């Protein structure tokens, strides 16, 4: 018994021992790997620490440790606290500042929130990973790929047929005076706040059918906008009331820089199969939400996916015992996501880049920014929604096996009615965990994925040269239409293939502590200017290995 104890102490001292992470071109820290059903967390193994090593053929190396604690004191039933901290040292990342003293080893935070939950309600407050649908890999309104966001989330069961989900999130705090005219802020080099408020109602005609409708607003400036706090408001109406409030109170609602988004998503399935989807309409303000104004092409995105698990079949086929054990724990999932050109792009007056960090000056059409700067703003992982941004699509397919599959929850947003129905299920915890997954992704990035420069500036060169241009000659300058229509990847400028092999196995267990090992082999082919005479493909192989301690 001595040896295992020594190993445990060694691993604990070497905190946090590993988890498999993801990297983008900019080596941003704390990107959340999209592993879906393969994911770490399964019921009570919600605490873990790991030590990770990553290496690729581009010369990338990283040593990373992470510890995640999920503490729920028994004296305070329902209350819990989640805290994540990590350290990382990568020669591809310049941590800078204070971290120069630590030899470029930087410390960073992950999720950190307090929560209260029971089967009817759930409240979380703090930095948390948020997603906007039950999809496995990609979500359009809110995706957790690039890490946690500071938010208050309240999920409430209203009846077995309806639940509601409110998210008041601050993407970035407002720093500086508030002005509806953001040019003022730009000139003073101040950073305006970014917030996303989401109100969502999920309807369940049957326990296994969920249809969600969301009404959300992404707004700039002061993060606390009282007009958007009302949980029973409809943002379309709120924005439309601006003039009325201006007359009544002597000032408008400070909602001038607001971007409405409406979403529809669904999940249907039970006992080992499910299909899901999300549809997003993104538009700059209330007037353009109704698809009536041809001056703007529609800005939309969609996700469709599904999963099948082996126990759906073995329940009926009754194969031999060994075959049953293998087949019932096998799963396959598939997902397709697509966004149109101009989704997540900015409005013609204010700046709506749906990214965490943007080009920080007012866009000057007379001195346009370079492609390099555009690429930096639009990098994968910078978007609040779909990780690839606009005018892009992706297909994900995974086949995997895990011995606790029947007890593994669907990867999802944890809406309250799901929690309610899940509370009736029997739960057994496996003593040993073994997981294996093959995952393939094909993605494509289209042309004019330019969210910084307004899209009509992209197309109407004349507008820049002569802002008073009345191209249709009807005497009204601001109603000129475009012959551009809603576009999906008409021309593809980059496509990529990612194939990864994931493996995890428990090694030994002592009381509630389990030591395991996880590894991933990642193959990434990226083709620039595909299907042209000058196409070129880069290949990068990345290997990751982590030693893991989990406990519950």
């Amino acid at each position, binding site marked *: 018994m001595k040896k295992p104890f020594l190993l445990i102490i060694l691993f604990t001292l070497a905190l946090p021992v590993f988890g498999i992470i993801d990297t983008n071109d900019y080596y941003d820290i704390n990107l959340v790997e999209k592993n879906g059903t393969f994911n770490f967390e399964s019921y009570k193994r919600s605490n873990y620490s790991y030590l990770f090593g990553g290496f690729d053929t581009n010369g990338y190396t990283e040593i990373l440790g992470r510890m995640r604690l999920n503490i729920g004191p028994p004296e305070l039933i329902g209350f819990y606290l989640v805290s994540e901290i990590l350290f990382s040292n990568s020669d591809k990342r310049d941590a800078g500042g204070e971290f120069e003293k630590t030899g470029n080893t930087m410390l960073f935070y992950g999720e950190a929130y307090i929560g209260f939950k029971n089967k009817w309600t759930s409240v979380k407050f703090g930095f948390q990973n948020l997603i906007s649908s039950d999809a496995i890999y990609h979500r359009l309104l809110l995706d957790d790929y690039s890490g946690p966001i500071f938010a208050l989330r309240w999920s409430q069961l209203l009846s077995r047929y309806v639940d509601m989900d409110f998210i008041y999130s601050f993407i970035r705090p407002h720093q500086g005076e508030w002005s509806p005219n953001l040019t003022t802020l730009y000139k003073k080099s101040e950073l305006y706040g970014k917030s996303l408020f989401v109100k969502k109602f999920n309807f369940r005609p049957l326990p296994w059918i969920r249809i969600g409708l969301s009404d959300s607003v992404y707004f700039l400036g002061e993060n606390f906008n009282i007009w958007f706090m009302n949980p029973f408001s409809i943002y379309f109406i709120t924005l439309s009331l601006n003039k009325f409030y201006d007359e009544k109170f002597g000032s408008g609602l400070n909602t001038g820089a607001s971007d409405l988004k409406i979403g529809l998503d669904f999940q249907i399935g039970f006992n080992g199969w499910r299909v899901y989807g999300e549809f997003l309409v993104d538009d700059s303000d209330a007037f353009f939400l109704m698809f009536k104004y041809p001056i703007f092409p529609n800005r939309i995105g969609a996700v469709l996916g599904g999963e099948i698990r082996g126990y759906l079949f073995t329940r009926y086929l009754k194969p031999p015992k060994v075959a049953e054990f293998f087949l019932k724990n096998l799963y396959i999932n598939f997902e397709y996501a697509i966004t149109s050109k101009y989704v997540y792009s900015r409005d013609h007056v204010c700046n709506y880049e749906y990214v965490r960090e943007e080009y920080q000056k007012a866009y000057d059409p007379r001195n346009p920014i370079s492609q390099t700067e555009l690429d930096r703003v639009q990098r994968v992982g910078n978007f609040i929604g779909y990780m690839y941004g606009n005018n892009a699509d992706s297909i994900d397919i995974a086949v995997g096996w895990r011995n606790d599959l029947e007890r593994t929850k669907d990867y999802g947003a944890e809406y309250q009615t799901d929690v309610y129905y899940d509370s009736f299920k029997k739960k057994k915890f496996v003593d040993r965990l073994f997981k294996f997954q093959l995952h393939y992704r094909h993605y494509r990035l289209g042309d004019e994925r*330019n969210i910084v420069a307004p899209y009509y500036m992209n197309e109407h060169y004349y507008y820049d040269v002569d802002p008073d241009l009345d*191209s249709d000659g009807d005497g009204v300058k601001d109603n000129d239409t475009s012959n551009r229509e809603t576009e999906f990847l008409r*021309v*593809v400028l980059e496509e990529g293939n990612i194939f990864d092999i994931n493996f995890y196995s428990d090694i030994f267990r002592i009381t509630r502590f389990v030591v395991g090992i996880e590894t991933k082999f990642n193959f990434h082919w990226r083709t620039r*200017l595909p*299907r042209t005479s000058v196409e070129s493909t880069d290949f990068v192989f990345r290997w990751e290995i982590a030693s893991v301690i989990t406990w519950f």
Partner: protein
Amino acid sequence: MSMKKNLNLFFIGLIVFAALCSTGCAVRYNHARVGIVNNYDKNMVYVGLFIDEQSGDASGDMIVKVAPPARRPLPVGERDYLDLVWGGGYGSVKFAFSFGFYDASEDSYNVYDCSTDYLELEEGDEKVFRIDSTDDYFVN
């Protein structure tokens, strides 16, 4: 047995046929590369003006796509390239550069100060615009 063999051959043939068809139907794009050389004595900013097959003919419908510069500003004596891609099966497209030089009196640039004429580009073309002054350039 032979029935099974024939069935297998049929399915294999079907897969090969589908693969060949999908390869044959694969979308192809046209590509041209345009370069710009700053031969003037001031730093320059530029954008590409690109009229592809998406554009309508009427002036109100005309789409001029603005291609962002690769570098900004472009120092004296240096060059840049832009890659242009348009739909396969379409013939030529038109392209011009709009550019401006640093104005020390206003400490600013105006990329729309000057422009070249539109040049017709075909698949595989590589053209370089050498800008000698605000109104003098040549293409090779």
